[in-house]
């Protein structure tokens, strides 16, 4: 499909409602932001920016990172790869540089999915392009930060991630707002292409503000023996967050894992799912979600579609309701289209069992300590195949998020 076709289709979809989630009036958000100057090193960023970035796993020291990308509002402040075999740049720059990139543009996510994908096509504000060349293996993660500083701004980014054959890529993406920002809209398109024998881990940490609306649109195409491991953490307030990242296992033995960790306070509405099409022999999928509410409303979805024999997939969703207000709605879906497939799910929603708290109290923990030990354990999803420092980033984001919400 040509660039012209994409625009045409986007124009037609400009008012197309999203299949799920509350509708957003895009006109209430401003498209304009002043340009921010580039930096030579992330260290040059202000302390305020650095501090906020740390909360979403972005290290301004760039220690233990194989590359970095930093976008503030509509300006790309920094992009650099510090390992051969890696490419890091803004997606607009990449589009100019590589003719072939049009073969990847809107191929894992449809441009006319809804008004948000349409808006990202028609009014794109950069986004990142990350690529690992064939056989390249990164030891340290690439980091990408999307930062919003202007009150009421709409930021629409389009990210492309390509892991060429036999490569290995670890990515951490942090999305956040400046401390003063209360209101905004973030639309993030992310398209992942995981080629034969490639291995990608993607960890995304969100830290928004109580009046920010967020609509990520993510697709991943995984070829033969490819592995895609995606972790998503949102422990902070947000007005509405709706996303349903979808992975397509198109090559034999393609493997996908989605881990999702959510915590919602009063006023936050989160509707987060993950969906996997298992369309090639031997493909595997595991979806795990943990949701806690302290007054907010969470819908947690999972959808597995088994299209060929010999696939295996499991979906697990657990929710904890910690206050009188708030709700958790778990919607697991299994769709088998042939026989000889193995798909299962388990879901549980409720409060912490009194008996478990009492048990720990009998060992000398007070009520508060017992409760937080159980919540910490609940949120501690076993994440296989992730480098240690990324596990630590997730743990940090979850534990600080948990602590702060508890004290609120």
């Amino acid at each position: 499909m040509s660039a012209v076709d994409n625009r045409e289709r986007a124009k037609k979809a400009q008012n197309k409602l999203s299949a799920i989630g509350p509708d957003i009036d895009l006109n209430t958000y401003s498209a304009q932001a002043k340009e921010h100057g580039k930096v030579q090193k992330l260290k040059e960023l202000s302390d305020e920016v650095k501090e906020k970035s740390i909360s979403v796993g972005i290290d301004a020291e760039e220690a233990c990172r194989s590359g970095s990308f930093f976008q503030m509002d509509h300006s790309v402040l920094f992009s650099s790869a510090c390992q051969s075999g890696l490419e890091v740049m803004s997606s607009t720059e990449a589009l100019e540089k590589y003719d072939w990139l049009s073969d990847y543009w809107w191929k894992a996510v449809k441009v006319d999915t809804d008004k948000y994908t349409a808006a990202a096509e028609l009014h794109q504000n950069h986004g990142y392009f990350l690529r690992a060349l064939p056989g390249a293996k990164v030891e340290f993660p690439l980091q990408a930060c999307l930062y919003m500083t202007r009150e009421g701004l709409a930021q629409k980014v389009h990210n492309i991630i390509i892991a060429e054959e036999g490569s290995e890529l670890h990515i951490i993406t942090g999305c956040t707002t400046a401390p003063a920002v209360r209101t905004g809209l973030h639309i993030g398109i992310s398209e992942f292409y995981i080629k034969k024998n490639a291995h990608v881990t993607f960890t995304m940490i969100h830290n928004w503000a109580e009046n920010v609306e967020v609509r990520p649109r993510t697709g991943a195409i995984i070829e033969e023996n490819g592995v895609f491991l995606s972790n998503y953490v949102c422990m902070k307030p947000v007005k509405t967050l709706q996303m349903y990242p979808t992975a397509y296992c198109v090559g034999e033995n393609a493997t996908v894992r989605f881990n999702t960790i959510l915590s919602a306070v009063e006023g936050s509405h989160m509707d987060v799912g993950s969906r996997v099409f298992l369309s090639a022999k031997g493909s595997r999928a595991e979806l795990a979600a943990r949701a806690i509410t302290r007054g907010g409303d969470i819908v947690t979805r999972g959808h597995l579609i088994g299209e060929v024999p010999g696939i295996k997939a499991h979906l697990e969703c657990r929710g904890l309701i910690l206050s009188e207000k708030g709700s958790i709605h778990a919607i697991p879906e299994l769709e088998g289209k042939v026989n000889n497939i193995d798909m299962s799910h388990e879901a549980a929603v409720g409060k912490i069992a009194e008996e478990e708290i009492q048990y720990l109290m009998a060992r000398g923990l007070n009520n508060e300590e017992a409760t937080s030990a159980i919540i910490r354990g609940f949120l501690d999803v076993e994440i296989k195949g992730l480098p240690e420092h990324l596990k630590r980033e997730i743990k940090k984001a979850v534990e600080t998020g948990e602590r702060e919400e508890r004290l609120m």
Partner: protein
Amino acid sequence: MIEVKNLTVSIEDKLVLKDVNLHIKQGETIILFGPNGSGKTSLLKTIIGIPGYRIESGRIFFNNMDITELAMDKRAKLGIGIAFQRPPAVRGVKLRDILRICIEKRGYFNEENLNELANKLNLLNFLERDINLGFSGGEIKRSELLQLLAQDPSFIMLDEPDSGVDLVNINLVGKVINELLEREKMASRRKKAGLIITHAGYILDYVNADRGYVMMNGTISCSGNPRDLLEDIRTEGFEGCVTCPR
């Protein structure tokens, strides 16, 4: 060390303990027998202070301090420990986590010390598992004892520590219980006291307990030498206890 006076307890409007009196001195270990549903576990849970076991009348004293109204964690801190008959699984909390917390609460924590305790109960491979989740019956009994080792309480209540434990492990369990209760020391040197519930009495082969009691229908109906009591129950069942002159 522990004194229960005229204790009457109900759960959800059902009387489970009726006017129970019990006194266990420092250095002593007593055995509690009794048929299923007679109230043995209820007595232990009331002593540790589990909410829901409503005290209708009576008092509980620990080292002469009235603990009848005290919160559970405070009782644990004073030095009351319990190995539950059927503890819940705590998903997400690792056995290692709870042991660390127990040891830290006593003071200086060191990892080696923790591993050593786990090794003693053959549970080194269980440290990274969620507490009791998927543990077998016998593994649960050992995990409970391990937690008590980490806690090191002075009054130790063991609810059927020998039920479902195989012949090899009962040896281990017996040894650890003796260690917890300082049974190898002279009675006057012991700082510990114990209350052990058993049905089959296997534990008596290892722990040389001081006295035995039989609980019937929420009341303690007789007392005596634990081995003699066990023998009587074996031969005559619990009927004999109802009319027991002891």
